[in-house]
């Protein structure tokens, strides 16, 4: 036993200083600029603080106030809606595009690149493009006019009923390409022998998809799901750049409302409480999924 202890010790001793530095420096940086502020955020959620002076502890008051803050409630509902519509559509669109473009044919690479292109744009640039499309005399309204559906035209980004979906469409433009690439990679890794075997056994396309492709994509699905949930909950840029949560808060998400509370209203404690809710939402989705995935694996 003493031998093994010594052995282990030597191992630790012999950690080269360069390696130690490569571990320690990033860890310290991470602790300093990520963990510490995150912990501080949790603490702030239980205080009233304007950013100057010292935060005043108020217990659960911020959270109690959230429960009857009408804008928070709109933001919460919109965030859930966003998660479902944006998340669902990203997954569906991404998968359909991947299935459509997985074939090796001349020119397919061009389509793939075009669909992936929006991913490399900054979301603020994306927002500018969509602003022009959605403008009162922009492409959409003009196109509707041209086909005689002028009465369907509206001010897309300023109509409380349509604004959230208009924003989802703009975000999808980007996320569909990204999800498509994830699925393309997944589809590539499926052994062609499996599909071949299914075909020989007389399975039609739908059956092949259902019994061969989907089960093989399970690993990719879990990545896609986490990406979608995280993306949906942190959606901020496009909403902020296009509507800032307006008109009259009808497109407010938790993230944009948090920003407004922190930097326009100056209530950092209250904003931290909203941040906590976003965190809890994200973590609960991901934990539920992880538990399910682990259980399946165990089986």
């Amino acid at each position, binding site marked *: 036993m003493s031998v093994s202890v010594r052995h282990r010790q030597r191992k630790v001793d012999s950690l080269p200083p360069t390696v130690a530095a490569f571990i320690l420096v990033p860890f310290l940086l991470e602790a300093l600029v990520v963990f510490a502020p995150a912990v501080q955020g949790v603490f702030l959620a239980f205080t009233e603080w*304007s*950013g*100057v*002076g010292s935060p005043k502890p108020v217990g659960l008051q911020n959270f109690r*106030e959230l429960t009857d*803050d*009408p*804008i928070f409630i709109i933001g919460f509902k919109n965030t859930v809606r966003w998660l479902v519509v944006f998340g669902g559509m990203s997954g569906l669109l991404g998968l359909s595009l991947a299935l459509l473009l997985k074939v090796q044919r001349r020119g397919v690479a061009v389509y793939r690149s075009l669909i992936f292109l929006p991913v490399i744009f900054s979301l603020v640039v994306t927002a500018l493009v969509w*602003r022009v499309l*959605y*403008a*009162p*005399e922009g492409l959409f309204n003009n196109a509707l006019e041209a086909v005689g559906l002028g009465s369907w035209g509206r*001010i*897309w*980004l*300023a109509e*409380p009923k349509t604004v959230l979906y208009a924003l989802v469409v703009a975000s999808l433009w980007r996320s569909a390409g990204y999800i498509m690439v994830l699925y393309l990679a997944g589809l590539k890794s499926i052994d062609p022998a499996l599909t071949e075997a299914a075909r020989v056994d007389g399975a039609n396309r739908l059956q092949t998809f259902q019994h061969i492709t989907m089960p093989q994509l399970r690993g990719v699905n879990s990545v896609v799901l986490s990406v979608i949930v995280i993306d949906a909950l942190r959606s901020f840029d496009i909403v902020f750049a296009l*509507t*800032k949560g*307006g*008109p*009259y*808060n009808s497109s407010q998400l938790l993230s944009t409302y948090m920003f*407004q509370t922190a*930097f*326009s*209203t*100056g*209530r950092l404690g209250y904003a931290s409480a909203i941040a906590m809710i976003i965190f809890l939402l994200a973590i609960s989705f991901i934990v539920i999924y992880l538990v399910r995935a682990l259980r399946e694996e165990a089986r």
Partner: protein
Amino acid sequence: MNIEPTMNPEAEPETQSLIGRRSFVVGATAVGATALGLLAGSPAAVAATKKTTKKAPAKTSGTITLQSNNADDKSKSGMEALVAGFNAKKIGTVKLNTVAGELFRTQLTQYLTSSKPPEVLTWLAGKASQNYADQGLLLDLSDVWASPEMAGYSSALKGLSTASTGKQIFLPYYYYWCGVYYRPSKFAEWGVKPPKTWDEYKALCKTVQDKGVTPIGLGLSDTPWVASFWFDYLNLRVNGAKFHRDVLSGKKSFDSPEVKAVFAKWSEVLPYMDKQAKGLGFAEAQTKFYKGETATYVAGNWWALGAPKDVGDDIDFFQFPIIDPKVRVAEEAPADGFFASAKGKNTALTKAFMRYLATPEAQELYLTTSGNSSIPASPKAKAAVTVQNTKGKAMLEAADDLTQFFNRDGGDELQPTADAALLKFMDKPADINSILTEWQAAAVSARRV
């Protein structure tokens, strides 16, 4: 230039004028570069000349930083000239650090509370600065105010620069007027004249609308705060400046009958306002106005500065129409300037620089270089004279009372509540009662900060 008599001396400093940060914010995205410079503040000066130097406290040397939010090209060149003018005097070095308006606004608290803050910063007079002074973050500038450079500054401006402790913590360097902008050539084409009264204005709107032009332009998609010009002015014309301050400070309620009366007046012109307003950005609305697609636009003096070359001087303003002749006339006159951080290391040089900024030469230098038509704070300074700023100044001097702007008088935290309420009213004027109830509730909760 003396705007003193027009301001209400009785008003509490808090209500008297709060300049808010919002305009900036908004300014950044919205008003765009040009306006930003204006809204934000800038200084003045050059020539500060030897007189100042001699009088400055004996030992000034070293380097201080001037953090500026005048980020558009013109205003930035004005700031550069200003700083160069001071540095040429060889009594110390000022380094200019320009930060985009929106970023500046959100980080201002961090600048002031950091361990090594910039010594001098651009900001807004009134509540926006007084709030920081209350937290002990600003340098006492009383002795700068007592210096010969500042002799003759109006007491209204002094009031806007004074903290609750009674000490001056702010140095104003210009202020500007707001009004209803129009293009004279278009008015001639449509056969209308600038109105004086509300009825005349409505008649004008009708005439213009019949010619297929949108009478009232507005762009709210990225700058919803612009709608607050309408609320401010209608409230000033219907209920007067005192009530306006009271409702903004929370002494009166947004769902009171007086405020309802404001919206009743607004309803009379609502059909004349651009239906696309909520879908148009600041710049798009500006373009429509320049093209003559909209006839009038309520805004600050910065509205004229973004005009393309072919519009040139073909832009003018008239006073917001009088609604009730019994109500004392008030105008909006926001003031911008500088303050200094309490934690700054080089107080002697900071104050010498402040005194330089207060000179008429410095203010003229800035306004001329940056092409800004605002009115300098120094009573001895000549504005970069245009027909308009003579007219603007006269309008402010003739007013019985002055306010600043919604967020400057009511505090930044109130602006989002106004944006929501006003936009909703424009969409659903019939729901005004419930809108005002919601607004009042939102205002109460925002003020809890």
